[in-house]
């Protein structure tokens, strides 16, 4: 059964080798991830996860205090699909245009199946009639697997640094 507490390592995780994974392919996965979210292509973005994938957005505060609550908690790609359905179909909000700047993608764990990676993100958001501004900054703590040679996320945790979210967190991090 799903772990109650996000398995996020709050601290630093040392680099390992890329093993059977190609660094360029991992970089491409993150690039597509950002490009899809920033183009608002949320359904296609879902395809970057395996069916069993878990996806969480959680504040650094909860991670560091060992509290299980996430801000977005999807225990399966199906649950993540439900959220995408909601963003597209049921929620009311003014349009947000995002730019996910993802840097420092690093391999931090490796086994026969899974590559663990961390990365930094800064999400810049543009609202109707306003200037572009920083929405959030933080780090990723992810797991990547190869499905018929194509890399997919089997788990993703986005940990945002500032406990206070400016208004809302609508577009996934």
């Amino acid at each position, binding site marked *: 059964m799903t772990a109650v507490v996000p398995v996020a390592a709050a601290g630093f995780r040392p680099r390992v080798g890329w093993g059977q994974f190609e660094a360029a392919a991992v970089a491409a996965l993150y690039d597509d991830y950002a490009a899809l979210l920033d183009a608002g292509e949320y359904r296609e973005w879902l395809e970057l996860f395996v069916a069993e994938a878990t996806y969480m957005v959680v504040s650094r505060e909860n991670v560091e205090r060992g509290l299980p609550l996430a801000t977005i908690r999807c225990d399966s790609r199906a649950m993540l699909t439900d959220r995408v359905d909601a963003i597209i179909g049921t*929620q009311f909000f003014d349009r947000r245009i995002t730019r996910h700047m993802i840097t420092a993608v690093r391999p931090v764990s490796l086994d026969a199946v899974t590559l663990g990676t961390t990365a930094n993100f800064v999400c810049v958001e543009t609202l109707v009639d306003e200037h572009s501004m920083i929405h959030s900054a933080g780090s990723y703590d992810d797991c990547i697997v190869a499905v018929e040679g194509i890399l997919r996320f089997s788990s993703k945790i986005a940990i945002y640094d500032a406990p206070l979210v400016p208004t*809302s967190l609508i577009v996934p991090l």
Partner: protein
Amino acid sequence: MQFSTAEVDEPIAVRRRWPDQGVSRVPYWVYTDPDLFAREQRVIFRGPSWNYVALSAEIPEPGDFVRTSVGDVPVIVTRDRHGVVHVVVNRCAHRGVVLCQAPSGNATTFTCPYHQWQYASGGRLLGLPFKKGVGGHGGMPDDFDNADHGLQRLAVTERHGVLFASFDDEMPALPDYLGPTNLGWFDRVFDGRELSVLGYQRQTVPANWKLMFENIKDPYHASLLHVFLVTFGLFRADNPSKTQMDSSGRHSVLVSQRSTQREVVGTDDIKRVQHDLELHDPRLLDPVREFPGAATVVMQTIWPNLIVQQQSNTLAMRQLVTRSVGEFELHWTFFGYADDDEEMTLRRLRQANLMGPSGLVSIDDSEVMRLAQRGAMIADDGIALLEMGGHDLEDTEHMVTEVAIRAFYDHYRSVMGL
């Protein structure tokens, strides 16, 4: 220093005049006038009110503390070595430094970084360096008495694990403050069982704090704005429901009951509903009944800074922290009960997807509050309309009313002298 809770000089009621129609109207300047906001801080948040500050479960052990705010005053909620809870203003009595920065922790003394003045959990000044000088030089005057220079203390009360504080020492007991009806609803969730804190969500909302209360006291919008709720049958305007205030109108509770089916009945509220939408992972919403009675949604607002949320199995304290006339912080403390099994905990954690800055319900509310504030800021001679359900202030047995908002402003006007 002590905050004065005295009335302030500027004669606001003169500068600002409430519309003649009374509380079925709200002038937009209540959301935009900085002087009014300053007055609210004095007469409401630092006045005769019980402000929610924390759950006892957040500071279970002696020495545990959490930082929070009462209105825009930062305070520390501490449990001393004897287990007694104190609430003190987070400002050094020497030269005003905000001394505690940790969001939470365990400490039985608090030391200011600037000159190392040291305070006890209850705010008492324990000591200060060089009080007697160094080598016979300097030091504090002989008439200096530590007892005069502690951190400002607030009155504290606790009920079933929920902590409230007040700048007013003459406050009535919490049950009297809440009144019998709202006390009953309060005790429904806080029935004496030990609580367990699941975590926090925090957000800033670019709107006046009163718009948050309006939103929660407004059952009228729920079935119209929250398509997700209606789509999945969590809320409908024709569900059995009621609105109950206390005698002053400052507190209220909205109670509703999930419908057992999703067929379309001929109400207006379903225009935007996605009839074909089904959950791909039903675990996102698998509510189980856990409280006596049929109510599945109970939203209680406790003057002046708390919303107690029970939506299906997601329980949260929503604490309002005012930042400015045009912005407030919303701090969500999600909790369960110490005797929840892991399945129930997981259920609560998954249903938390409905609430908070990413909540599939609350995203809608944050957005309309933001847009209502922008509307209020357009010019200061506009007026909002609160006539749904009539003009009265009585409890109702339905959701088609703005009565709880009217009652809120009825109390607000008397407190603010407007």
